[in-house]
């Protein structure tokens, strides 16, 4: 079934406030979803609050991006990031499996008797582990994030560590917004299987606004680059058709 080549793409936004520079992040998230990338958002709050506006924006981005949104304290960031990544993979796959089941049997997994459902889920679970997973983490590095940066860095390192343990191929890229100087978004680390710890250490808060929308756009560009590169590397095979269909259908609204 070409399961090995199917890729799940996720973009995780870590922020503590509202965007105020560049294009609308909700529109950018909707574009991501259209291109088969799920957008998750985590709001990190330290004692205080994101503010109603920030909270609502976070929700809308996740909604438009077909993903999840959670607002948590810094100490829960790491666990939340991993839980979300895993659940989003599960969700994406289950949508595909349900569509296939609907076509073949006219019912979804929930309509099956529990014992049969259990068997289907075990197959899904195995696929979940073996699929390729590409994640872009976009980190808000505006001034208000200063006290939380150490925790954010550890959370990203921890997420990458979890993904490395998967049987399928996993790659992580990291973006910081705002970047330093004039650039609204800075590439901290391009897609890679190993996390570059030094690059992560150098991810510091920067002066500037909160260009969440441009960060999502840049994330999409990263996915496009790696997609292009992978297709060049690999000679086209008969498997390609179903594979591409999988990735696109996975998050079709």
């Amino acid at each position, binding site marked *: 079934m070409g399961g090995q080549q199917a890729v799940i793409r996720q973009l995780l936004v870590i922020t503590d406030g509202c965007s105020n520079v560049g294009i609308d992040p909700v529109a950018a998230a909707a574009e991501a979803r259209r291109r088969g990338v799920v957008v998750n958002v985590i709001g990190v709050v330290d004692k205080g609050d994101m503010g109603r506006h920030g909270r609502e924006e976070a929700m809308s981005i996740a909604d438009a991006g077909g993903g999840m949104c959670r607002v948590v304290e810094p*100490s829960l960031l790491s666990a939340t990031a991993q839980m979300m990544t895993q659940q989003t993979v599960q969700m994406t796959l289950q949508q595909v499996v349900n569509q296939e089941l609907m076509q073949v049997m006219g019912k979804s997994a*929930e309509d099956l008797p529990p014992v049969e459902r259990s068997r289907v889920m075990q197959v*899904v679970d195995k696929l979940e582990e073996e699929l390729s997973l590409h994640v872009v983490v976009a980190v808000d590095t505006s001034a208000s994030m200063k006290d939380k940066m150490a925790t954010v860095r*550890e959370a990203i390192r921890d997420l990458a*560590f979890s993904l490395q343990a998967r049987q399928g191929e996993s790659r992580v890229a990291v973006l910081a917004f705002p970047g330093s100087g004039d650039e609204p978004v800075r590439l901290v680390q391009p897609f890679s299987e190993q996390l570059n710890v030094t690059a992560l250490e150098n991810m510091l808060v920067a002066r500037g606004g909160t260009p969440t929308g441009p960060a999502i756009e840049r994330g999409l560009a990263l996915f496009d680059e790696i997609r292009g590169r992978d297709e060049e590397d690999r000679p086209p095979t008969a498997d390609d058709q179903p594979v591409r269909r999988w990735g696109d259908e996975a998050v079709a609204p």
Partner: protein
Amino acid sequence: MQCGDWVVGKWTGEPFQVERPLGTGANGEVYLVRTRRGLAAVKVCPNASDIALEWAVLERLHRVSGTFPKPMWIDDHGPSAFFYVMEWIPGTPLSQAAARLTGHAAAAVVRGIAEGLAELHAAGYAFCDLKPDNIVIAGDPPHVRFVDAGGVTPFGRSVRQFTPYYDRAFWGLGTRRAEPSYDVTALALVIVICLGGLAPPVSLTGQTPAQRQSWLRRGIRRWPEGVRPLLEQALAGRMDARQFAAAWCRQAAARPARPGPRVPTAPGHPTASRGRPAVAGASASVAAGRGPGAGRKRGRDWTEWLMWISLIGALTSTACAWLTSLGWLR
């Protein structure tokens, strides 16, 4: 689910009545229920997949090991409540029982956990979410049971459910891949943190694994010198569960191993009366009896002083007021 609710399964038609909530797991809730076959526990979850997978694991495990709850049946209730019914394990979680365990009883618990892990490992699975809340001391004579199979994972896969302080990767002690050594490290962490009476500070989450390790090393140094190398080896995952249990019990037989003075921030909440008193000989005195920690003593003295000072102050000012009003003091 509300207490007193009757639930009739969609597929089996099997009814049960909800008695009370037992707790919240990582992905759902567990209730005590009354079924036609007596009391049982029910795990309910809005996600069909989690319930289906856990059920599959419990079914497979109960054929090879009696440590996890025995599965009874799986069913749905309405469109968004998926559940399975299993054996109810009454007892006290280690998180609550730990403070009352004597050295020998603690060694028996460690052996029980290691035996349970060894059975699980022989079946090709790792527990992964081994932590004091998931270890229950049950029955008479007391023995160790595991609850929450949500993290149980076949060897070779990535760990799907874990708790930071009992996760070796959090401490920089290894990968997050399901294998026997993952659980052995978790067991050593349970000993150092829970049986050692430590409470990891929240600030650890902002530190690097190397910095976290130095906190852990300080915890190990509180144990008698004889058991430290053993703990180190287990933390590094360099032995299997049975080897570790045997070595630990040899040490315990010679000299019941307990850490030094307890620090004031003991984990597990002061034991609620809900749970039954655990393990024989686990009378309250011993764990804390090795001398209350210096920190706690100082803390109590400080507040006591404050109380006396404010009392004396209040008395003096009252006396002065009376004396003034009576005209004796000018």
